Structures are given as structure tokens and as C-alpha cells.
């Protein structure tokens, strides 16, 4: 025991690309899948206690730096916290939810996360997803689970010039390459 924690290794080692938007693999992020009755006070307390943000409304992404709560489904949240606090966060949530029907799973190492920055990010994402990327349908702060080309992904805009994308780690390279292709200089479509 008490060896130093292993340095987290992300799927692509922080890969970056600059095009219509910049694409960057984000550093290791704590991600805890929390499933159960979202209206249940102990579950709300477990989620907000770790994330330090309000419970998200339907489809909302409530984020504050490396912490946040993402509404994934009527019975599922993704809890974000600093990577090296994940084990502790899972333990504290398990303790609060011990006698309730709920599921707490550390999925940090099973996911990859990208950040997009720049003016054209709605168009870049719209090349890859069938989701309606208009500001009326997907305003900043709202999460959309959909697909990017052939794989599942969840994404949200923090602002009109910054977005985050979460996908399975096993397809991190595929998603990064997709985003690179969609953000290729000279390929602007100017739709959104």
C-alpha cells in the first residue's frame, strides 16, 4: 500500500489538432455512472455532494471546472470529478446509497473526452451526428447523447465557442480522427 497512484494514461496522450476548430483530448477525468431514481433524496445528495453543482434538469449538463453532473437518462447521471478523487467519491456515494436501489460505477478509464474550441463547432459536430445542432434545440449547457458517425457519443456546448465530447475509450482514436476530418481547413459549410 501507499505507493503513489499510477499516473493516469489517457487514450491518445492528449492529442491535438487545429483546424476549423481546435480539437484536444482532455486530461484524465473522473467519471462515475450513477443509476437509480433521480428524485430520491439520498441519490441527489450523493450526486451533488461529489459534484458540488445542482441536480441537472432533464438533458442538462451542470458543470463547474472538472466537476459536474450530466443528465444521461431518466434514471442515469454521469458524475464528473477530478480524476484522482474518483475512488474516494465512489466510496462516499456507495456509503450514502448503501441501503437504496442504486448503482455507482467508476467509468473514468472506460471513456475519453475531447474539447472543441472555435467558432464553427456546431457545423463540425453536425457533419458527424444526426442530432439537430441548432442553438434553439441544443443551447449551451444541454447534453445530447447521440452518435458521431458510427459510435455513441455524448456532447454539450459550454458556450458557442467551446464544446466537450465524451465517447468510449476504445473508440477514442476513431472519434478524434472523425473530429479532425470534420474540422479540416477549407471544409467550412457555414450552416449554423
Amino acid at each position: 500500500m501507499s505507493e503513489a497512484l499510477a499516473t493516469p494514461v489517457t487514450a491518445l496522450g492528449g492529442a491535438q489538432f487545429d483546424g476549423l476548430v481546435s480539437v484536444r483530448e482532455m486530461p484524465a477525468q473522473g467519471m462515475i455512472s450513477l443509476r437509480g431514481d433521480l428524485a430520491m433524496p439520498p441519490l441527489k445528495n450523493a450526486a451533488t455532494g461529489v459534484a458540488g453543482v445542482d441536480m441537472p434538469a432533464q438533458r442538462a449538463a451542470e458543470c463547474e471546472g472538472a466537476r459536474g453532473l450530466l443528465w444521461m437518462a431518466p434514471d442515469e447521471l454521469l458524475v464528473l470529478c477530478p480524476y484522482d478523487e474518483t475512488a474516494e467519491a465512489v466510496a462516499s456515494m456507495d456509503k450514502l446509497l448503501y441501503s437504496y436501489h442504486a448503482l455507482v460505477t467508476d467509468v473514468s478509464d472506460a471513456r475519453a473526452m475531447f474539447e472543441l474550441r472555435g467558432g464553427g463547432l456546431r457545423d463540425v459536430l453536425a457533419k458527424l451526428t444526426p442530432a439537430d445542432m441548432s442553438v434553439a434545440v441544443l443551447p449551451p449547457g444541454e447534453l445530447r447523447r447521440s452518435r458521431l458517425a458510427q459510435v455513441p457519443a455524448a456532447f454539450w456546448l459550454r458556450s458557442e465557442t467551446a464544446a466537450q465530447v465524451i465517447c468510449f475509450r476504445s473508440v477514442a482514436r476513431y472519434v478524434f480522427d472523425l473530429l479532425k476530418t470534420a474540422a479540416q481547413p477549407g471544409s467550412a459549410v457555414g450552416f449554423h
Partner: protein
Amino acid sequence: MLTLHCPYCDVQTDETELTPGGEAHLTRHGPGSDDDAFHDYLFSRANPRGVHFERWRHGYGCGKWFLAARDTRTLEVFGTYEAQTTEPPDHILAAIRDKRPGWTRAS
């Protein structure tokens, strides 16, 4: 292209974000039923040209099953609704009759 509303996410979803689940509102005939009823439960499906009720799963989203009423010929969607019902709800039936006067549900 078919666009359906997920009642759990309250969001419009493209057909390619969904997993089709075939005909909705089937009655299960299992142990104790006669062979013909069991056969029909397993293999016989309505395949109407017109109003139809289907199961769909928001596979690339929340993962929930929901039900949809649509026209198989025009792709017009009359409405979607939660899967926890054995019969189409009244507001869905009303929406269908509004667009297809005289339509009756085959039993």
C-alpha cells in the same frame, strides 16, 4: 428519413439513433397456450400499409424503449408514447383519427 420523439428525453431523434423493435402491443402467448396462439405470437406480425404501432429503443441515447404510431406509407408520425402501456393511449388514437378519418384499429 424518419424522426421520432423520445418521450423519456423529450427530444427529436433520428431513425439512425434508434433501434427498431417491431410491432407494438403484442399479447404474449406462452406456456399453457395452444400451438396456434404460440405460433402466431412468435411469428405472425401485422404489416399494414398505413397506420402502424411499433416499438423503438433510444439506443444511442437514454436506452429506453418507447412506442410510436406512424403511417408506414407516408412516414407521417402521429405520436410516440411511453412503453409502459398495453394499449395506445387516447390522445394517440385521437391524433390518428384526426388525420385518418374513419380509421379503426384492427384487433
